[in-house]
C-alpha cells in the first residue's frame, strides 16, 4: 500500500524554510532550513534544549513560527491550529504524554475523529478499530480500560498507536522510546519500517545513538536552535562524528564503570507487597552500591520503588535501614530517613510547572538547609540553585524562569538537582536519564557514580538495557509484578537479563 511514488531526490516531500521561533527571553529556533524525502526516516539530534521539540511543534501547528514557513509537497503551508496540520496529513507523537486519562484507551486513540454512524459515535467500530490499531504495538492493552490505569510505557504505546490511526503521510516521533523497553522498541521499529516502506515521511527524535543508526536513513543535527548539518546518508557516519557535531567535543565511554568497594547493607526490603506487585519482593543493597532494576514495560519496577518510598501504601512487608526497621508512611518520612525518589513521570509527579527553576530545586532540601522557624533563607536558596544549575549544566534564561518553559531534558536535570541539593543514604531512581541527551547522560552517570563513591546506595529502575548493564553493580530483574532474580554484574548479559524479564 505505497503512498505515491517513492524517493524522488529532487523535491523533498517536507521542507522547513528559514524557520525561526522565539519565546520571551529565548530563541528556540533560528533560521532552520532542511528537507525530508518521503519514504525515509530522518533523525533529528541535538542536545537538550537544542530546539528539536520546538521544531516538531511548529510542524504540528502548536506554535506559529516567528518567521519562515513549511512546504509540503512543494506548496507552502501555514498552520494556526493542530487540527490544520492533522488535516494536512501530519501526526506528531509529542515528547510528553498528552492523553486523557479518564477516557478509555479506544477513545484516546480516536480522539478528534471518532468513528460515527448516523451522527452518533459508533462504539462497535471504535473498539474494533482500536483493537486493530493496537495489534502491532501492544496487543495486551484492552481498548476498554481507562487510559489512566496503564503504566507510562503502555501509555506511550497508545500514543504511538494514536498517531497511526490517522493514516498520516508525515509522522514525527519525539523521543518515543524514552519510556519503552527493548521489546516495545522492537515493535515500534517494525512499525516505523513498515511506514517507511509505505512511502511515508518520518521524523525521529532521540538521544539514543544505537536507535538512530538502526532505523534512520539520514540525520539532521541541531545546536542551540540552529541547523548544524544534515547527513543525507548514515553510511559513512559514526556515533562519534554525530556526537561531536552535536556537542562540539568528543564523548568517551559514557558509563565509565570502575569497580567500587561496597560497605554494609543500608536498605533492606522484606516481603514487600502492595498494588502492582504480585508476589512479595525482598532485596537488599549496600552502601556505595548501584543496584539496577530491570524489567519490561509494566513489570512493576515503578511500583516497587514507590512502595519503598512510601508514595503508595504498602499492604505488607518491612523496610530496614542500616539494620533497623523503619516506618515509612509518606514520602516525607522516607526523605527524613535519607531515602529519596526521582520519578519516571516527570510531568505528573516531578515538576511544579508554574514554579521557578529555583523553587523546584529547593522545594525538598530547604527544610534541612535553608531555613529557620519555617522562614526561607533566600540567599541560601539562590546560591544552591545557582550551584546546581551550573553543576548540571541546566539551560535556562534565569533562575526565575518557570519550569514548564524549559526543554524536557532540562526539566529532568532540575528534578535531579532537587535531590542532589541534600544529603541522602539511598536514592531511588526511576529512569533517571529519560529524555536526557548523550552528553548530559554521561554527566548523570558520572553523578550516580560519584554518589555511590560517597557511600550512597543507588537503586536505579531502567528499561534501557545498555544503561542497566553499563552502570549497575548488581541487577535485579522484575517480571509481572514479582522479582525474578538478582544477578551480579559479572554474570549479566543482555541475553540473560532479557530471558529473566520475558514472561515464562
Amino acid at each position, binding site marked *: 500500500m505505497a503512498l505515491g511514488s517513492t524517493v524522488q531526490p529532487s523535491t523533498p516531500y517536507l521542507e522547513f524554510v528559514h524557520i525561526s521561533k522565539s519565546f520571551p527571553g529565548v530563541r528556540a529556533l533560528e533560521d532552520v532550513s532542511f528537507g525530508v524525502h518521503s519514504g525515509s526516516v530522518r533523525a533529528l539530534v541535538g542536545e537538550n534544549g537544542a530546539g528539536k521539540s520546538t521544531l516538531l511543534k511548529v510542524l*504540528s501547528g*502548536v506554535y506559529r513560527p516567528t518567521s519562515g514557513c513549511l512546504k509540503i509537497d512543494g506548496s507552502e503551508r501555514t498552520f494556526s*491550529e*493542530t*487540527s490544520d496540520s*492533522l*488535516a494536512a496529513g501530519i501526526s*506528531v507523537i*509529542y515528547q510528553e504524554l*498528552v*492523553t*486523557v*486519562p*479518564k*477516557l478509555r484507551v479506544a*477513545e*484516546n486513540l480516536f*480522539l*478528534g*475523529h*471518532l468513528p*460515527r454512524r448516523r*451522527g*452518533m*459515535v459508533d462504539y462497535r467500530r471504535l473498539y474494533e478499530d482500536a483493537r486493530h490499531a493496537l495489534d502491532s504495538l501492544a*496487543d*495486551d*492493552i*484492552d481498548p476498554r*480500560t481507562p487510559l489512566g*490505569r496503564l503504566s507510562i510505557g503502555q501509555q506511550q504505546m497508545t500514543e504511538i498507536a*494514536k498517531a497511526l490511526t490517522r493514516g498520516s503521510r508525515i509522522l514525527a516521533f519525539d523521543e518515543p522510546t524514552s519510556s519503552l523497553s527493548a521489546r516495545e522498541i522492537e515493535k515500534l521499529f517494525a512499525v516505523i519500517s513498515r511506514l517507511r516502506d509505505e512511502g511515508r515521511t518520518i521524523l525521529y527524535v532521540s538521544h539514543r545513538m544505537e536507535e538512530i543508526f538502526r532505523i534512520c536513513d539520514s540525520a539532521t543535527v541541531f545546536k542551540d536552535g540552529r541547523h548544524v548539518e544534515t547527513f543525507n546518508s548514515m553510511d559513512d557516519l559514526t556515533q562519534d562524528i554525530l556526537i561531536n557535531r552535536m556537542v562540539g567535543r568528543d564523548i568517551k565511554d559514557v558509563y565509565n564503570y570502575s569497580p567500587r568497594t561496597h560497605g554494609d547493607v543500608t536498605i533492606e526490603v522484606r516481603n514487600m507487597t502492595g*498494588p*502492582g506487585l*504480585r508476589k512479595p519482593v525482598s532485596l537488599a543493597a549496600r552502601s556505595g552500591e548501584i543496584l539496577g532494576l530491570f524489567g519490561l514495560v*509494566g513489570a512493576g519496577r515503578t511500583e516497587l520503588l514507590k512502595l519503598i518510598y512510601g508514595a503508595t501504601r504498602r499492604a505488607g512487608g518491612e523496610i530496614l535501614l542500616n539494620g533497623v526497621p523503619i516506618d515509612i508512611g509518606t514520602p516525607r518520612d522516607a526523605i527524613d530517613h535519607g531515602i529519596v525518589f526521582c520519578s519516571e513521570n516527570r510531568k505528573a509527579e516531578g515538576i511544579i510547572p508554574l514554579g521557578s527553576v529555583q523553587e523546584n530545586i529547593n522545594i525538598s532540601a530547604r527544610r534541612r538547609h535553608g531555613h529557620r522557624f519555617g522562614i526561607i533563607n533566600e540567599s541560601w536558596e539562590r546560591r544552591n540553585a545557582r550551584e546546581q544549575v551550573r553543576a548540571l549544566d541546566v539551560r535556562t534564561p534565569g533562575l526565575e524562569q518557570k519550569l514548564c518553559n524549559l526543554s524536557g531534558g532540562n526539566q529532568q536535570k532540575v528534578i535531579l538537582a532537587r535531590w542532589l541539593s541534600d544529603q541522602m543514604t539511598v536514592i531511588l531512581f526511576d529512569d533517571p536519564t529519560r529524555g536526557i541527551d548523550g552528553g548530559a547522560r554521561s554527566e548523570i552517570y558520572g553523578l550516580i557514580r560519584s554518589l555511590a563513591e560517597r557511600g550512597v546506595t543507588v537503586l536505579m529502575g531502567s528499561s534501557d538495557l545498555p544503561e542497566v548493564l553499563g552502570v549497575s553493580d548488581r541487577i535485579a530483574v522484575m517480571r*509481572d*509484578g514479582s522479582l525474578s532474580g538478582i544477578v551480579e554484574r559479572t554474570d549479566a548479559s543482555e541475553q540473560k537479563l532479557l530471558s529473566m524479564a520475558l*514472561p515464562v
Partner: protein
Amino acid sequence: MNLSEKIMAGTPVSSFKTLDTSVLLDRAGMLLVFVALFIACSVFVDNFLSWRNMAGLSLAISMAGMVSCSMLLCIASGNFDLSVGSVIAASGCMAAVVINLTGSVVIGILAGLGLGVVVGLINGFVFAKLGINAFITTLATMQMARGFGYIIAGGKAVGITNSDFFVIGTTYFLGLPTPVWLTLATFVVFGWLINYTEFGRNILAIGGNEEAARLAGVPVVRTKIWIFVIHGVMSALAGVVLASRMTSGQPMTAIGFEMTAISACVLGGVSLAGGIGKISYVIAGVLILGTVENSMNLLNINPFYQYLVRGTILLVAVIFDKYKRISSI
C-alpha cells in the same frame, strides 16, 4: 502472554471480576445513597410516600433537574457557569414582557430563549475565544443578566395576561405535571448527548485534558462556545417554564440557583476538575437535594435547624459515597 493468560495470572490489566463490582458500585454511585435516603424518608416521614407528595417533589426538582443537565456539560469540560440563576429570572421576565406586548405566546417564548442564547454566546465567546476564565466571565454575565431582568421588568414581577402560556407550567400529562415530563426528556437527551455523540465525547476529552484534546484536533473553542450556548438555552427554557408555572416573570427569582445546580452535579459525583459526565450522577444529586428539602418541610423542621440538617446531610452523603467506593476497591 496474551490477555486471557494475564487474567489467569491475575495481573492488574486483568481482574475483570473485581473491576465489575467496583464499576457497578461506581456507576450506581450516589444513586445508592439516594435509595437509602428514600427508604429512610418513606419509613420515618409521614406522607412522604403519598402520590401527591411524589408529584410535588418531582415538580420541585424539575427546574434543578433541567439546568443541572446542561451545567453538567460545563462542569464536565472543566468549568462552571454562575449566570444560570440570573438567566432563569431574566428570560422569564423577557417572555412575560414580550407576551404582554405582542399577545403572542410563541414570540414570547422565543424571546425568552433568545435571551438565553445571547447570554450563552457572550459567555462562550469571552471565555473560549478571548480566554478569560469562566468564573469571572459568568460572574459578570450573572450580574448583567440580573440587571437586565430588573430593567425590563421595571423592578417588579410582570404578570402575564395571556393564559395560553400557562399550559407549559400548569397542565398534567399521564398524572405528572408537564414540567416534570420536560425534565425527564432533558435527562434522556443529555444522557444521549454525552454518551453517544462526538460532541459529548469531545466535552469529556476537553475536561480530561484540554491540551490533549486540542492536539488531537478537537475543535476546542467551538465546543466550548456550544456548551455555553446550550446551557444558556436550557437555563432560559427553565426560566420560561418557571414563568409559566408562576403565571408571571419574576426578576428576583432563582438567586443563588447556580449553587443548587453545581452542587447537584458535584454531590452526585461529577468532578469539578472535569472529565466526568455521567447523567446518572446528576439525577442522583438532584434527587438527593430535592428529597432532603421535601422531607425537612414535611417534618416541619425549624428553618434555622434546616440549615444544620442540610449541611450535615450533604457531608454525610459524600462521606458515605467515598467510603463505599474505597471499601469496594
